[in-house]
């Protein structure tokens, strides 16, 4: 750029502030620059924030270049400006100063407002999570107590069943050759029932452990809900008869086919029936009601027992949690039932039955059974 051209540029009434700098001193400038900071002949350094001086020095050393700096223009307040640096002859540089003004402030404001939103959201989530952690810790502590209780109860149950086997064996051993067919049948029956009891207890413990580890894989295929229910009710009929409790099936199914693992589905219904029978008294009736909609099928198991207190309704599906005052349960049946229902992509919950009792409701999607283990 010739000296003449430069002078013409500085004399033109361009509103962009322009300065010519040599060795850190403003040697000439246009009117817009003069209006900003005053007369030429002064060093440019004091007009800039300390850190900005290095930035500008770097831009001058590598010109043509540009940099964003904090400058004191016409007052003590720092404002942000962008400076374009062009090298002239004889160690001089032309500086063009552009305001980053309105658009910049607007972008900053938008970002700050968004950050403020995020901060409020984070505060909320942190506070909620902290409450969740507290609740989890206290659940963990009570789980440790429950686990201890569970082990002693399991040991007690297994020992009771084993005692039945030992006593029956002893009867057979003592009676030597004089054992009557009646005594033989009775002892064999006791051994079989005790063995079955131990097998059932260990099955539950194993199922709970497997489902917790995500190791249960469904063999899901189109299955008759009516058929599975009938088989399960049939299995539990003798136990119900002994307790003088009726089981009634109310079948309102239109389309009874569900994609499910029939063995696991039977186990779910069985666990709910076992639970209902445990809380029933002689003369009560346990109802199994089956209904369906295009997308899902519903199984409702209703008893006439004492019902489940509101504060226990979520927790009854957790491991080792049992209703009050009823021995003979490991507190795993409902836990396993929920795991299996969820593995089928369904839901289970409990509510109050009318006029009394508990009502367990299972909803299964008609064709959304998952075959992979739960993560």
């Amino acid at each position: 750029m010739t000296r003449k051209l430069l002078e013409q540029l500085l004399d033109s009434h361009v509103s962009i502030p322009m300065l010519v700098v040599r060795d850190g001193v403003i040697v000439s400038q246009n009117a817009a620059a003069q209006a900003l900071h005053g007369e030429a002949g002064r060093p440019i350094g004091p007009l800039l924030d300390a850190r900005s001086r290095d930035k500008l020095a770097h831009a001058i050393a590598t010109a043509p270049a540009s940099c964003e700096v904090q400058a004191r223009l016409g007052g003590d307040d720092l404002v942000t400006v962008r400076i374009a640096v062009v090298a002239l002859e004889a160690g001089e540089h032309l500086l063009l100063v552009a305001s980053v003004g309105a658009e910049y402030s607007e972008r900053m404001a938008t970002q700050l407002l968004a950050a403020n939103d995020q901060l409020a959201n984070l505060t909320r989530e942190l506070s909620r999570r902290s409450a969740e952690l507290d609740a989890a810790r206290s659940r963990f502590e009570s789980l440790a107590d429950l686990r201890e209780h569970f082990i002693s109860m399991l040991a007690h149950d297994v020992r009771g069943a084993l005692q039945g086997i030992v006593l029956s064996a002893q009867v057979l051993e003592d009676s030597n050759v004089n054992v009557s067919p009646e005594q033989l049948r009775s002892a064999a029956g006791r051994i079989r029932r005790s063995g079955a009891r131990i097998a059932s207890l260990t099955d539950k413990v194993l199922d709970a452990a497997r489902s917790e580890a995500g190791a249960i894989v469904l063999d899901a295929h189109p299955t008759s809900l009516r058929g599975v229910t009938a088989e399960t009710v049939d299995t539990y009929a003798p136990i119900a008869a002994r307790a003088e409790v009726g089981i009634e099936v109310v079948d309102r199914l239109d389309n009874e086919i569900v994609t499910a693992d029939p063995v696991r589905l039977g186990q779910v219904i069985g666990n709910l029936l076992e639970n209902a029978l445990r809380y029933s008294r002689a003369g009560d009736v346990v109802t199994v009601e089956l209904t369906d909609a295009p997308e899902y099928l519903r199984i409702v198991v209703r008893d006439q027992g004492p019902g489940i207190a509101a504060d226990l309704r979520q927790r009854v599906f957790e491991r080792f949690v049992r209703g009050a005052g009823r021995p003979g349960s490991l507190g795993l049946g409902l836990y396993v039932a929920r795991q299996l229902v969820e593995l089928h992509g369904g839901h289970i919950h409990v509510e109050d039955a009318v006029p009394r009792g508990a009502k367990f409701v299972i909803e299964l999607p008609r064709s959304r059974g998952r075959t992979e283990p739960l993560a």
Partner: protein
Amino acid sequence: MSRLIDRFRTAILSGDFPAALAVAREARELGLPVLYEQVAAPALVQVGELWQQGRISVADEHIASALTQSVLASFYPSFVWAVTGPKGIVACVPGERHELGARMAADLIANDGWNLIYVGSDVPLEALLTRVVHEDPVFVGLSVGMPERLPAVREAIARLRVAAPHCKLVIGGRAVATEGALALGADLTASSASGAVEAIRRWKR
């Protein structure tokens, strides 16, 4: 109550955080719904009107709104969270920017015994779907303030129906006031935060 509103509006318009917090504490003593629906929300409506009348700048309005956010957020640590309560999720539809109302609704629902997760604004739909499948809530509430976001609501609802068929869907916010819930595919339209609290109570389980 109008005195509390006046004091709160004056404080947020002058950027006076301590004063705004003091008024909010007084209102909080009377209950969270009082603070949210009878003090903070009306004060913000008045701030909006002042801007409409050209008596304050958009910057003043932004500062007032941001200050309100901060004041309300300062109560979170003392919230009693119903973490064992039934779960719900409230989100703004993707692209939505007016989120104070949605979070106030979320807090009032949480205050009614729900374990309410608020996922905020500008949540990509995929992220929302993943969260819903993971958390398995009883309901998802979608807030939409701007009418141009209604197609996004329709899409979100359709995708949620597939991803979480058992989940109830509620929509709220200014933009849905004139739209029926059914037209958008939701189960329920909430006309106000307290209306939503009342309406979804029957879904608690």
